[in-house]
């Protein structure tokens, strides 16, 4: 079984990203299972999507247990740090460097610095690939496609199990027609922002 954990902040689009991965797997004839955070936490709370591919027996726990994720896709540096306990010892991390400052930090005047979180990831001993989130956000324009751009980066970095072509096919099968070209284009932009 191949496990991918997506960790981010409500509104960043982990639900669509995990669905694209599951559709890629289904297109290869693999069984796919996912679990989403849907509900109140989608309003700026911590969200995770669990993707479990190629299970041989059912029922499958929808949530990846600690220490079992092959890949952690961090949509936000602090959320990637929070999800580290889920990684296998030889698991890897792909993280977008753009931090999302919680309102609680802004209100209390306490600093939340994404660079501190990225430093923790670097010290963790896992294989970490950084994606320039600030540059990527500026290049894609529409913040709603940050999720798909990160998938493009992970695929280009060879960390994803799936190729960009497979992601394109999944986009065709999942995303409404008028947004398909936009999403397929940001796969390339994501690939250009691997640091």
């Amino acid at each position, binding site marked *: 079984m191949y496990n991918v954990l997506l960790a981010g902040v409500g509104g960043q689009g982990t639900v669509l990203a995990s669905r694209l991965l*599951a559709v890629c797997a289904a297109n290869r004839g693999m069984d796919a299972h996912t679990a989403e955070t849907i509900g109140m936490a989608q309003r700026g709370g911590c969200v995770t999507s669990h993707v479990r591919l190629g299970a041989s027996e059912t*029922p499958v726990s929808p949530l990846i247990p600690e220490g079992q994720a092959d890949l952690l896709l961090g949509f936000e540096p602090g959320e990637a740090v929070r999800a580290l*306990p889920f990684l296998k010892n030889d698991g890897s991390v792909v993280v977008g460097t753009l931090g999302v400052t919680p309102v609680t930090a802004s209100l209390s005047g306490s600093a939340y610095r994404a660079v501190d979180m990225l430093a923790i990831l670097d010290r963790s001993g896992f294989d970490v690939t950084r994606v320039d989130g600030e540059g990527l956000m500026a290049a894609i324009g529409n913040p709603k496609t940050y999720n798909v751009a990160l998938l493009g980066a992970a695929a280009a970095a060879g960390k994803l199990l799936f190729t960009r072509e497979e992601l394109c096919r999944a986009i065709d099968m999942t995303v409404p027609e008028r947004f398909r070209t936009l999403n397929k284009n940001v796969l390339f932009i994501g690939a250009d922002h691997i640091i």
Partner: protein
Amino acid sequence: MKQLLMGNEAIAYGALRAGVGLVCGYPGTPSTEVLETVARLKRAGQAPDVYVEWSVNEKSAMEVAAGAAYAGMRCMVTMKQVGLNVASDPLMSFAYVGLEGGTVILVADDPGPISSQTEQDTRTFASFAKVPVFDPCSPEEAYRMVQDAFELSEREKTPVILRPTTRVCHASATIETAPFPAPKKPRGFVKDPGRWVIFPWLSFANHAKIEARNDRLSRELSDYPGNELLPGEGRRAVAVGGVSAAYTAEAQSLLGTRAPTLRVGTPFPFPTEKALSFLKNADEVFVFEELDPVIERELTYLCGRYGLRVSIHGKLSGEMPRSGENSVELIAEKLAEYLGVPAPQRREKPDASLPVRPPTLCAGCPHRASFYAVKQAMKGRKCLFAGDIGCYTLGNAKPLDMTDTCLCMGAGITIAQGVRHAEPDTVCFSFTGDSTFFHTGLAGIANAVYNGVDMVPVILDNSTTAMTGRQPNPSTGVNAVGEVAQVIDIAGVLRALGVSSVQTVDPLDQDAAVSAVRKAADAKGVNAIIFRSPCVGLFKPETRMTVEADACIGCTRCIREIGCPAISFADGKAVIDNTCVGCGLCTQICPVGAIGGARDV
């Protein structure tokens, strides 16, 4: 071919496969996507003959389905667990009267709770209502079980509950589905007052029949594939239900253990024969289930009833938590101790002060402006702010801090009245969303007018049912399948109910909003305010605000006053990120006029 379906989608597909002809419900996490899927498939022409509606509340939905089921239609009613409280009056009698067309009541439970006000267990509700309940352990099983539930319902002429939990509803799996037949043709309503009109004598007679039926089903369901014995080694066994079955299977695989397992898919009527044959081969049983100890109690009861010397471990024995979700980690830890194998090593929590992220109102949410206007208008006065269920419950968060109470759907309007009676010098406000207003708000307004209370009901009309993912409701002019529907005008409804005044204001115009609040608060009687501005998810933003860095004095008033997530501070200056939708509330708050300059997106 297999397709990837969310548990809730799988339930919709299963119901259509079973020939459902009518689906109705009220949105509620984690149940919402079931009805949305049926509506989507109807719109796409894949299920053209099914009737589907968002009802105004769960009670209405249950009654609409009861009527159609009397006439022989296969029906499904969808709701979250607390929705069943609203629908419990018709359900209790529906169970006594019975039906002609098979009817499944889809009630999604929410252990955690993740997005709910209670951790009530619908398995317990089912046994109270004396209706059979199916408890799927996965999306795959939910697809099969909903079809089995329709068969059982129609055969036994009783409503049947399907009770998935959040981790089944919002999990997806690749599932082999079959085409939908046309809905089963209803025979039509056949008049028979001795059957459809509930009277004490009928209830007495049917009560006895229902108890006898449930005793029989308890034996018959022992052979149901959803109730299964998984063979293993040793006499220390486990019993599981719902998603805990999946967690336990994975925990056993991590630990390398093979304890014999009883999986219960129909917690009521409980599969007694199967459970007895399981207990006879065990010395001890550890039960893993979420919420109420339903399986644990049944097993404990059977041991007493049949004189079996088996120790039962679980919540009642104090070995498992009584609230919250289970997990593979928790079950593995308990199983390791129980079976005497080494516990898996837990991973260290990251050594960092991680950001706290409570859910917040979206950037540009009009509710923020509504709350802020009331707060400004009532500064220094003794007030109660009675909240309700919806996105606007998040008005409780600092810095707004504008939700003093939240109980259940529609309760804000009536709680405000109660506080006013107990504390007459308090100005009592209630905040109710447009969908909640139609769900259970009308009765509260009538109660206030009839009983002559002074209060200010505030209706937060954002033209959608936002928290559950923006479903239409009676104020939106659209129905569940996207057709034009008659708009029910909230102001007209309030006037018809006899309130003293109604003011409709755009909350983003703060001056107008504040003066409307002052006027309502100072008047006698029930003085309603409708704050009308669309949910930010309903439109594409045309403007965004920017901060003129030279002008910003770094006073942080913008973030301290309204807590908008688009605003943060860098190098002592306010920064507005691209989640801004240009609502302009911050421009009205900045003391030096540094925010503005709306730019095109």
